[in-house]
């Protein structure tokens, strides 16, 4: 870890705490390791939220999480004494039972810690530029994901418009897949629906999804043979510097050409108001 103006001894000036369901390599790199029982993250974070506010929580109830009240109190004490705390969390939290509420719990804890000291929280995003997708969708539509334009303007409802749910329920009749391989990662009923409807895939490889698709187009690889921008998980944009020249077109070019081809066809929406004030 870097030495810095305010933490001249680098790693030695920092305290790292790892919370996981099993000791991993990272545990050795940390000062403190807390082993939480699988499925008890939400409970543990909720206990911490209570403890920072000096609320009482029974020792036995806390112990059910796999972490003792004493350990929790010690952690709270360290957090409050820290000059600047940072929480990172990954898919072990956000993709297990409780999902977005587990993430919300940690973000709330970080928010509430600011009553005592400076604290921030950041999701460790996987999958390259998924942060960029969030950022771009937010500025163009106001929402980060789970969007529909079927009424001519953006509407948002995760669970209703999020892809797994849409596919499992069979709510879509054509799919355009780019920079992802749902055919390898999604539940079987979702994959089955992708195979039923016309699916179009843009990917540098022939993927599982390509194999069940009606149309596959090979494109160059972002950051290796395609230039552009990617967002780091803290939403800082960075330029991509391809080292190779691809024989294939970029995603950007292909999507634009498909868009242009569609724009030449009849527009789907009848003439109507340019602006409405009562949305559905």
């Amino acid at each position: 870890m870097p030495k810095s103006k305010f933490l001249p001894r680098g790693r030695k000036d920092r305290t790292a705490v790892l919370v996981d369901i099993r000791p991993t390599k990272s545990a050795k790199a940390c000062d403190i390791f807390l082993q939480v029982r699988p499925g008890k993250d939400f409970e543990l974070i909720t206990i911490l939220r209570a403890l920072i506010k000096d609320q009482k929580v029974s020792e036995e109830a806390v112990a059910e999480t796999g972490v003792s009240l004493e350990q929790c109190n010690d952690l709270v004490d360290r957090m409050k004494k820290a000059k600047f705390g940072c929480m990172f969390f990954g898919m072990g939290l956000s993709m297990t039972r409780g999902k977005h509420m587990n993430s919300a719990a940690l973000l709330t804890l970080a928010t509430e810690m600011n009553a005592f000291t400076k604290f921030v929280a950041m999701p460790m995003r996987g999958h390259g530029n998924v942060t960029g997708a969030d950022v771009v969708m937010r500025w163009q539509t106001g929402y980060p994901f789970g969007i529909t334009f079927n009424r001519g303007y953006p509407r948002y409802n995760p669970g209703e418009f999020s892809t797994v749910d849409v596919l499992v329920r069979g709510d879509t009749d054509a799919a355009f897949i780019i920079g992802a391989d749902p055919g390898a990662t999604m539940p079987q009923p979702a994959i089955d629906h992708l195979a039923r409807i016309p699916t179009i895939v843009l990917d540098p490889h022939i993927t599982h999804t390509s194999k069940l698709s009606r149309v596959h187009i090979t494109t160059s690889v972002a950051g290796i043979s395609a230039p552009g921008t990617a967002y780091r998980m803290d939403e800082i944009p960075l330029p991509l510097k391809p080292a190779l020249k691809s024989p294939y077109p970029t995603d950007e070019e292909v999507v634009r050409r498909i868009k242009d081809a569609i724009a030449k066809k009849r527009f789907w929406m009848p003439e109507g108001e340019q602006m409405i004030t009562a949305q559905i």
Partner: protein
Amino acid sequence: MTLTVVNNATCTFCGCVCDDIELHADEIKIHKAKKACVLGTAWFLNHTAERKYPDALIDGKEATLDEAIEAAATYLHEADMPLVYGMSNTTCEAQRECVALADLLGGLLDSHTSL
């Protein structure tokens, strides 16, 4: 053979997006990715500039890019509720086009985040 060197290249394998990688490459592949982690090195070294796959496939058969673009446009235009999904392993420039595509289609738009 001399390799071209790209300094401060950006790795998009994971969300950390390190931008201090030194790439040594020839025409076909990257031979070295200095400062990259194990995952990043594998990411850079596993891709090549070879023509490994056909330009496009329609119903599993080789097709030209133009044919594939027209087929894609037709399927998407005809659908009552098309879906645009993914956008993780691609550039912001492509993402902007994807949002524009979903907006033009009047369809669904979603990323990996919702998983």
